[in-house]
């Protein structure tokens, strides 16, 4: 009977310092919904890494978070360059981030691996030259 709850966020690609805003907003919303600290942490880390990726590689994008009683679904969509080799991109420490981004302390090649590690399901749909959509799911155990 309960209707899905969806939040949408625009991730601004021009402003590096804004990356993390969606993740902070998500944290607050999930706290209101009474999720356990562990679930909140996993979702916000995955969201944060996704946001940073969109800012570094794709000039921003769109993030949506859908909350259902048994799962939280995050969808991050961008119209950036796409990922050429997904398998390689998933390797820890592999990064295509430019030097200037690495100098800022980002681009350690942990973004996608962390997103996978902290979520229960992750799906990457990408087309070179067109963009990437990443869907992540965190399941909610009955008791939390």
């Amino acid at each position, binding site marked *: 009977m309960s209707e899905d*709850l969806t939040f949408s966020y625009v991730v601004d690609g021009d402003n590096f310092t804004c990356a993390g805003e969606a993740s*902070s907003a998500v944290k*607050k*919303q999930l706290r209101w919904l009474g999720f356990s600290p562990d679930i909140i942490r996993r979702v916000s880390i995955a969201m944060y890494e996704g946001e940073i990726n969109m800012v570094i590689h794709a000039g921003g994008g769109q993030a949506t978070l859908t909350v259902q009683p048994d799962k939280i679904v995050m969808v991050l969509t961008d119209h950036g360059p796409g990922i050429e080799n997904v398998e390689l991109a998933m390797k820890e420490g592999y990064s295509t981030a430019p030097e200037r981004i690495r100098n800022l302390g980002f681009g350690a090649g942990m973004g996608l691996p962390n997103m996978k590690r902290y979520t229960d399901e992750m799906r990457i749909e990408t087309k070179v030259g067109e963009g990437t959509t990443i869907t992540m799911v965190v399941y909610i155990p009955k008791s939390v």
Partner: protein
Amino acid sequence: MALFHHSVSLDKSKCIGCTNCIKRCPTEAIRIRDGHAYIIPERCIDCGVCIRICPHKAKKAVFDKFESLPKDKYKIALPAPALYGQFENLDDVNYVLQGLLDIGFDDVYEVAAAAELVSDYTRRYLRRTDIPKPVISTACPVVSRLIMLRYPFLGEHILPIKQPMEVAAIEARKRAMQRHPELKAEDIVVAFISPCPAKVSYIRSEGADSSTNIDYVFSIREIYLELLAVMKKDKQPAELSGSGRIGIGWASIGGEATAIMNDKYLAADGIENVIRVLDEIDNGLLENLDFIELDACNGGCVGGVLTVINPYIAKARLHTLRHYLPISQNWANNDDAEVPAEYLDEAEYEYHPVSVLDQDRETAIEMMNRIEKLKKMLPGNDCGFCGSPTCAAFAADVVKGQAKVEDCFTYLRGEPLKKEPADDSQ
């Protein structure tokens, strides 16, 4: 937690229901209801921002009155180091300490001296490799309360050593019993002279389970006036002071952090900065630091709302005062990293989220949906007329049944609220 006692409170007769406090409260803990402010106790962190900004002086801090100090007990004053910064042209702390004896205390134990012990134990504690870093100071009770309400993963980062005022209370009692073997424990009362309401709340709330050793809390403001009347430079004060630069340095931001004698620290003051730093630690972004000192008030404890003098002036005065003092006069009395059991902070910084809409997940989701819809209909100008700090907070208040849509100014003015988007209504 249910017994949490707040020092910050409202004088209803002075409150005219303006929006200054609701807009500035860092935890959105205040609403205007029926023409007056209402402080939501679960959300209040006793930071004192509302006391500072209320133009009508309707917010106040509750603390003990100096006249309530019992005459027939052995009375020990514990002055916070911020007290020393209040006086013009003060060149010797002993004038203040002598003054405390002259206004009726039997003994004085400087919180600055206890702070030096805490600093020494903190340095030893930080050498341990099995502790979660960065370690966060507990000296500002606003910060520890904020952590309990919002940051479930930061509880274990909190320094497990009692704050200086509590260590001072323990040492002061011990010293009094040594000097006066005829005294029984119940003959001694210990009074902390506080720069802020948060310390009052901390002591009162801890007091509920009797883990505090402090019996009375007076405000620096009240004691300052008492002291001005007796502090005359014509007589030489007794040599009572036993603290150095480190202890007095604790009064302002950075004092505690620099005392760890290690460059891997961060010190931030002002509640907005404190929240931002905690967010960063929570996001795991500050892992290469050893120690975090956070003070809710601008300038540190010298900026507390129960002080008299502008925090930066007080800080400048403390610089002068500290100039000829030794670095520290108090050291831990053992060589290992062990913190004595009596100094260990037993308080549990358990997570107490306050904003959960409903314990039932489906109900909470349904409420959140209604909040999101209502938010889109509201003007979004955050005018505060309704008594909630923002349109978003108002939407939540309405859905929680704590406010009515009709309270919205735009609605009252007869303007239609924004149409609900059609696709959401089905």
